[in-house]
């Protein structure tokens, strides 16, 4: 099941909320969440829900073993088993086809790919499990003694299929002790509606523009054959907005749902496009993934004296690979690694001396070109894309499709640009300074929320373009 869906919003979620708030004891509330989470997952993955349950059981047992004495040899072996099992499962289900394809290409063999389907959300919940097992090994958190509580953490539907990667250590206390206050409810629902609107009203329509400009993998990126130079840059900018609104919209929904159930998840996006360097961008974009790799991979002690660059290479290779089993994603990850190294060599102090306008332009250009590498999954298309980007695509400076697209979508694009900056937050802060303005803003927020929910629902009812981007994660 996905969030941007009428069945979820108007049946599943209300039913879950009724059951959750009808029970008073936290133990039963946790059980309500487990049952609904498993149904939520099984809805789309009736078979792979068993894998989820099995993984939860295996890792819960391993956590207990490590937790008994995390300094012992047994704990080291248990950790190794956990790493092999979890990374192995990810390898089999997500990367086996990719691995076989590459072996065949390199060795000229003709092994058949096993043809397993990717269990949705496996990248997210595997990373959550890894963070738990490693934190227990490092003595950062005690092992969770109760299986059902651990299962609830792993299966919790708000963050199950599209993140954020919520760490066990961050919500361990709330599993045992949480209350939904009135502010949690109001802010949680507001956040949920904002997330749905970002996804349904903004992201889905931006996606339609992207499709009209570039086409997609299934049609061989048809649009790329006719798009002009300005069209390519314009399309990239729209991709940047689309990914942001889609992904951060999903994170908003997850964080909002969490709040409603009394959980406080960390923020996953912090206006990434206002960054003045690529280093800063990755501190603002998909924060839970960046911090995961920083804490659990960057300092891996296998490179000796070269650990800085070894760690960096590993982090950016894996960041790319995590996004999908394809070379373009790996290339995309390493592309970012390269800019991180360049910025490191320049130094923070000198980076800061760069004029603000130039710093923003440089950062946005790197991000947008990166999205091209991310979007076009085959190397031929990436080649065509770069040609077109540099003005050698053979389709002129500007084409009619681009002109019409910009004119027809001007309002949507302007709104998306403004909403991807902290303008609304700033207005809210200013409003807090006077009682009158505060009242006006609260009323405006209620009206806006109602409008966003109605418009989103109508769009969903109309069954317009509504893709789920995270099937490959």
């Amino acid at each position: 099941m996905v969030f941007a869906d009428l069945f979820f919003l108007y049946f599943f979620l209300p039913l879950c909320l009724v059951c959750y708030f009808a029970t008073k004891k936290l133990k039963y509330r946790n059980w309500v969440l487990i049952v609904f989470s498993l149904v939520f997952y099984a809805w789309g993955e009736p078979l792979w829900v068993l894998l989820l349950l099995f993984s939860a059981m295996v890792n819960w047992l391993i956590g207990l073993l490590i937790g008994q004495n995390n300094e012992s040899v047994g704990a080291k072996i248990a950790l190794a088993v956990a790493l092999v099992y979890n990374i192995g499962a990810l390898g089999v289900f997500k990367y086996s086809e990719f691995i076989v394809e590459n072996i065949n290409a390199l060795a000229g063999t003709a092994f058949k790919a096993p043809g397993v389907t990717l269990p949705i959300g496996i990248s997210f919940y595997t990373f959550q499990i890894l963070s738990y097992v490693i934190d227990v090994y490092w003595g950062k958190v005690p092992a969770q003694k109760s299986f059902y509580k651990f299962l609830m953490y792993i299966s919790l539907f708000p963050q199950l299929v599209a993140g954020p990667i919520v760490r066990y250590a961050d919500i361990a206390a709330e599993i045992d002790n949480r209350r939904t206050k009135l502010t949690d409810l109001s802010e949680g629902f507001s956040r949920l509606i904002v997330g749905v609107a970002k996804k349904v009203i903004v992201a889905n329509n931006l996606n339609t523009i992207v499709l009209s400009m570039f086409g997609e993998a299934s049609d061989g990126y048809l649009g790329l054959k006719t798009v002009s130079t300005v069209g390519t840059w314009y399309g990239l900018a729209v991709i940047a907005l689309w990914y942001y609104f889609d992904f951060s919209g999903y994170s908003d929904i997850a964080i909002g749902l969490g709040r409603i159930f009394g959980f406080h998840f960390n923020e996953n996006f912090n206006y990434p496009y206002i960054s003045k360097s690529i280093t800063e961008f990755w501190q603002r974009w998909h924060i839970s993934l960046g911090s995961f790799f920083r804490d659990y991979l960057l300092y891996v002690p296998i490179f000796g004296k070269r650990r800085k660059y070894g760690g960096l290479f590993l982090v950016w290779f894996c960041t790319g690979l995590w996004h999908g089993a394809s070379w373009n994603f790996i290339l995309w990850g390493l592309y970012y690694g390269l800019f991180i190294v360049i910025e490191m060599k320049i130094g923070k102090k000198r980076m800061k001396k760069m004029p603000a306008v130039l710093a923003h332009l440089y950062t946005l250009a790197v991000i947008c070109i990166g999205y091209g590498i991310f979007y076009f999954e085959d190397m031929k298309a990436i080649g065509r894309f770069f040609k077109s980007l540099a003005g050698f695509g053979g389709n002129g400076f500007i084409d009619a499709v681009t002109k019409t697209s910009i004119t027809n979508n001007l309002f949507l694009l302007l709104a998306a640009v403004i909403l991807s900056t902290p303008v609304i937050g700033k207005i809210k802060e200013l409003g807090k300074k006077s009682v009158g303005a505060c009242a006006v803003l609260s009323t405006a927020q209620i009206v806006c929320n109602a409008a966003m929910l109605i418009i989103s629902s109508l769009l969903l009812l109309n069954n317009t373009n509504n893709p789920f981007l995270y099937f490959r994660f």
Partner: protein
Amino acid sequence: MLSEKEIYARLNEVFRDVFDDDGITVNAKTVADDIEDWDSMMHITLIGAVEDEFGVRFKMGEVSTMKNVGEMANIIASRAK
């Protein structure tokens, strides 16, 4: 056994050297946010320099989870000869 005073004096030198800033003075409560350039990449350089200075090795979990200079100094005190 190194005295606490000596550990902090030598740490100070390492920090000033790594971050190229003679104005730095660290104490047990110093955290990454207190030093402008102390990000995850500089952390690796810093850890390497501290390891060389004291002849100790930090475990990956320690590198990743140490919250302040105090924790770093405690590990050095427990491990340095």
